[in-house]
């Protein structure tokens, strides 16, 4: 199991860092339920991987609230939003979400609200504001990079609270806590090494600690590899039980990563020598990855792409360990899918690969094998990168 999942915070106190921001949100929420509705909602702003979503769920858990999550990139139109939320005005409308159990209060959560581009938006943003202004449900919106002009109304209506990447010392607290829970001894050297490398990205830090705990060298030592034909890539992947090798293969063939995923999805469903428990676990993983690929394609999100690149090696590694073998055939319907995928993939290639390598003045090969996987460690500010990418797109 991924530690990022296993150690997802259950309570606010489990969320490390952003102490003041957390207090602000808690104060606002308490105020909201005691009648101070000056701000109908909170806008949490900050880069990915620093625990905004985890915090919202921990908060809801602590206050026994039921989270109704809307992903802003899924709900571009007002109709979609109202259909999912109901017309909040009526008392009965939100009961649907609480099921038949004892009724709990609702917390509306709009994740990635900056995924709504006001220009392409057909009422989604104003629906959110409309719901907010009715002040019948507390709302938290999360955004990576809200634009002061594009999201002006949102910024003026919601209480703006910044989430910052963690400091290295905060990262170390997080890692020490997990290490203690896992009962593993971790050297200060390793902790310092991770803490200095991750730029405050808690999720990445936890992934690196997990890798290190499997006896892996977390230093980024990627060996350049050839771009392989798809079948050969699958053959090599299914035969590998070495996470570094799997990662290298994926990184140097990252343009085929979604095809690899769907092939594995297929292999898992068809596998005869995998236990039922393992299948359930792997398919659960598949569903999550599938959702991420979907979002990545829709949003053309470089961050999701990078995130997927960190998850996929573990997915493949655990699938192989669970007895997945390649039987030498890719079902025909998959090929159709591959062709569809290729369309967006070419786009991804163009945007992320060509443009970025231009920005970084690197060859394609060096970019794919070395830079892409370590992009987080290069001294480019997220905002600048995002800005460059949005301009390019």
């Amino acid at each position, binding site marked *: 199991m991924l530690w990022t999942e296993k150690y997802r915070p259950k309570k606010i106190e489990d969320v490390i860092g952003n*102490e*003041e921001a957390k207090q602000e949100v808690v104060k606002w929420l308490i105020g909201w339920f005691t009648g101070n509705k000056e701000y109908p909602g909170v806008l949490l702003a900050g880069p990915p991987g620093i625990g905004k979503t985890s915090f919202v769920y921990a908060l809801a858990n602590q206050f026994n609230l039921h989270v109704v999550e809307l992903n802003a990139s899924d709900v571009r139109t007002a109709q979609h939003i109202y259909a999912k939320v109901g017309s909040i005005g009526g008392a009965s409308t939100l009961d649907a979400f609480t099921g038949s159990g004892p009724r709990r209060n609702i917390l509306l959560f709009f994740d990635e609200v900056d995924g709504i581009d006001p220009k392409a938006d057909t009422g989604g943003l104003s629906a959110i504001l409309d719901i907010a202004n009715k002040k019948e449900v507390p709302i938290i919106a999360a955004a990576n990079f809200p634009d002061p002009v594009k999201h002006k109304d949102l910024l003026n209506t919601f209480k*703006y609270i910044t989430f910052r*990447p963690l*400091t290295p010392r905060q990262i170390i*607290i997080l890692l020490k806590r997990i290490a203690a829970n896992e009962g593993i001894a971790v050297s200060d050297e390793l902790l*310092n090494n991770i803490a200095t490398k991750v730029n405050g990205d808690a999720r990445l830090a936890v992934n690196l600690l997990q890798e290190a705990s499997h006896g892996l060298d977390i230093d980024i030592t990627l060996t350049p590899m050839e771009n392989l034909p798809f079948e050969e890539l699958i053959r090599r992947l299914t035969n590998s039980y070495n996470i570094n090798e799997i990662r290298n293969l994926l990184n140097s063939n990252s343009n085929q990563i979604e095809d690899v995923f769907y092939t594995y999805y297929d292999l898992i469903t068809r596998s005869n020598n995998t236990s039922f428990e393992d299948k359930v676990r792997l398919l659960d993983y598949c569903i999550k990855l599938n959702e991420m690929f979907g979002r990545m394609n829709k949003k053309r999100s470089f961050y999701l792409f990078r995130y997927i690149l960190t998850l996929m090696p573990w997915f493949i590694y655990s699938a192989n360990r669970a007895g997945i073998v390649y039987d030498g055939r890719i079902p025909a319907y998959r090929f159709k899918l591959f062709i569809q995928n290729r369309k967006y993939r070419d786009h991804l290639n163009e945007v992320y690969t060509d443009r970025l390598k231009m920005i970084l003045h690197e060859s394609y090969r060096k970019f794919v094998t070395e830079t892409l996987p370590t992009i987080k460690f290069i001294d480019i500010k997220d905002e600048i990168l995002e800005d460059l990418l949005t301009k390019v797109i």
Partner: protein
Amino acid sequence: MQYMNIKYGTPFRIPRRLGDRFKDIVSIRGVKYIKGTGFIIENKEALDSINKILVKMGLILKPLINCYICGGNVDCDECTFNKSCHKAVTHCICKTCFQQRDLVNIYISKQTQMIRRLIGE
């Protein structure tokens, strides 16, 4: 020279006399202005840019970072992570507290206290 303490991510207002530099300040990347609330500085680069403007008018903004555990000042200059840290936080852990053996539990119980205080238990 006048000094003013600010916290990253926390809104503040500039003295009225500096109002005519408003446009320059809001156009800095990493600075936000929220009507009725004030300016928010997101990162060190933004702070440096603001200070370049304000220093000519006799004001320097200084970031405050408090230790979450003891409440004291955190001195980034004596931190081994000084170079790899973005420093744009309101809280971190001071050197003394960071060296405590039971650091993790102390930190977590601080958080528990904070929540209890807010909830009024």
